């Protein structure tokens, strides 16, 4: 895996090169000791509790392991050929992408808009910021339970809509064409505060003199935003996007609590949900492991992309 990942990192930036010059103190401790004390503990924990389990999962993915069938044997690529024809898996993959894209776009756009609105000092704005961040601190289960009470067909939202005269309000969770968007919406609500806070920090770094000078030169609001604010927010955008991609790809709790993958077969099932269902409900540990492996490959590809974006950020600075 690491071999493929090192490839695109060739475009080392001048900044990075300057920063990564080893300090002169290197001679005082042998390099090996430095590695052992600083790097080894973290890397070792990651190796033992993440990489080795991943390797075991990959290995299991080539077997037919199933607790109800004690004779586990190798089945080669059978699980993978089955996966590509499995509409439950491809559907889950599609759902995961839809949720991830919606959350990434919506939370970035709304986050930036709200950050612009809140980018002032004073107790009022401080308090409002804390409100926005609160859902980030909540557990996904709590968030799911809250929203379930709001979005069910006879929940608080539809009661309010009926009060406003809507006779047939939408079935936010019961309509198979809507439920996935409801899940994406819940997730967006939960992570929005994070984006707001990061964009606020980014906006604080935009020099006010620059904006004032542009205004005197006759630049309108849109032009000032496009040519001054937006480029300076690039790093904040990167951080938000990476975090949102991570959140989107992992989504499991909300699906499990709010829709259980439904209504109907797999309308809101995501990859993580599908893996857990296959492994623990269906007992197909081998097949589920192959699914997990494929998921990891997709994740690795996205990580490479994310890393490229990170490095471009270094270049532009």
């Amino acid at each position, binding site marked *: 895996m*690491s071999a493929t990942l090192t490839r695109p990192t060739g475009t080392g930036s001048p900044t990075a090169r300057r920063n990564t010059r080893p300090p002169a103190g290197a001679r005082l401790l042998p390099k090996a000791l430095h590695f052992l004390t600083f790097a080894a503990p973290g890397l070792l924990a990651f*190796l033992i509790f993440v990489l080795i389990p991943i390797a075991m999962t990959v290995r299991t993915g080539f077997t037919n392991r199933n607790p109800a069938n004690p004779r586990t044997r190798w089945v080669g690529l059978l699980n993978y050929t089955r996966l590509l024809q499995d509409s439950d898996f491809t559907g889950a993959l599609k759902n995961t992408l839809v949720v991830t894209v919606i959350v990434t776009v919506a939370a970035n756009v709304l986050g930036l808009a709200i950050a612009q609105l809140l980018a002032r000092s004073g107790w009022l704005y401080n308090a409002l910021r*804390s409100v926005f*961040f609160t859902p980030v601190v909540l*557990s996904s289960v709590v968030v799911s339970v809250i929203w379930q009470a709001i979005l069910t067909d006879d929940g608080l939202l539809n009661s309010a809509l009926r009060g406003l005269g809507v006779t047939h309000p939408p079935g936010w969770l019961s309509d198979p064409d809507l439920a996935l968007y409801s899940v994406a919406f819940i997730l967006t609500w939960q992570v*929005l505060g994070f984006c707001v806070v990061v964009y606020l*920090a*980014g906006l604080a770094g935009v020099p006010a003199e620059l904006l004032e000078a542009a205004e005197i030169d006759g630049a309108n609001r849109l032009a000032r935003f496009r040519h001054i604010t937006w480029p300076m927010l690039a790093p904040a955008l990167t951080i938000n996007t990476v975090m949102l991609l991570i959140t989107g790809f992992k989504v499991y709790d909300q699906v499990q609590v709010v829709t259980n993958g439904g209504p109907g077969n797999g309308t809101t099932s995501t990859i*993580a949900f599908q893996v857990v269902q296959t492994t623990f409900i269906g007992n197909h540990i081998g097949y589920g492991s192959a699914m997990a492996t494929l998921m990891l490959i997709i994740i690795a590809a996205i990580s490479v992309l994310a*890393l490229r974006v990170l490095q471009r950020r270094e270049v532009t600075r």
Partner: protein
Amino acid sequence: MNAGSGPRTPSWVRPIAATFVTAVFFLPLYEVLVNVFKRGQDITAHPVSLPIPPTLASVQQVISRPDHLFWYGLINSVEITAISITVLTVVSAMLGHYLARSAGRWAKAALAVLLCGLMIPPAVILEPITEVLRSLGLMTTIPGLVLVNVGYYVPFGVFVFTGFVKTIPVELEEAAALDGAGRFRIFWQIVFPLLRPASASVLIFLGVWIWNDFLNPLILLGPANGTTVTVGIYRAIGEHQSDFGQVFALMFLATLPILVFYLAFQRHFVKGLTGGATKG
């Protein structure tokens, strides 16, 4: 104060708009807050009304349960979270510093692999993790769970710390090295104090994630030892399907410590997360 909003918009527009948007966003939380201070039967009847008069009945029911679900959960949660985030901050700060100051492709490769690790849902690799823990004899122990947390969350710590370390001039460390300080002393006396904002963000985020984690304690500590406050919420939902007063109260009590923790650290943590990005 409001110079930036320009002469065209009156100064009262922004605070009103900001308050309104926040209020809409806040509505779901309002639902929880008002219901914590109502009795169970009043919740089904009037879910959105204000709790007048407010009552602590539901909260009292939760904290005085005969099986001490909340208190045992609280002790477990505090213990697991405190130990894990302390170890994680130390380990990932050192690894982050090491990788940020290392030239060469392998350091970047290591970063890339770590970044992949951030995106793995824990449920997906839980079963092999239990096999690893059993072979190490650490299954159903607190050290075992802490080590798993360290392994799983170290990428996030590294992600934050490498970004931040790069904003600290390397000359500072070079000067100290010329004065004869060892790597350990340089890191702990000079670099680590400068990383405070980054440490704050790592502590907060990992604190929140580990506090809210449900599956790992339940499986890795085992059903007999692994009840945390977050597990308690699940259980309460099953047990009080028809009395949501206790569920809301438990949600509120379970969230309170981590919310206070966040509010205590919030001044630093944004800078930590974006410090590397926005300076410069």
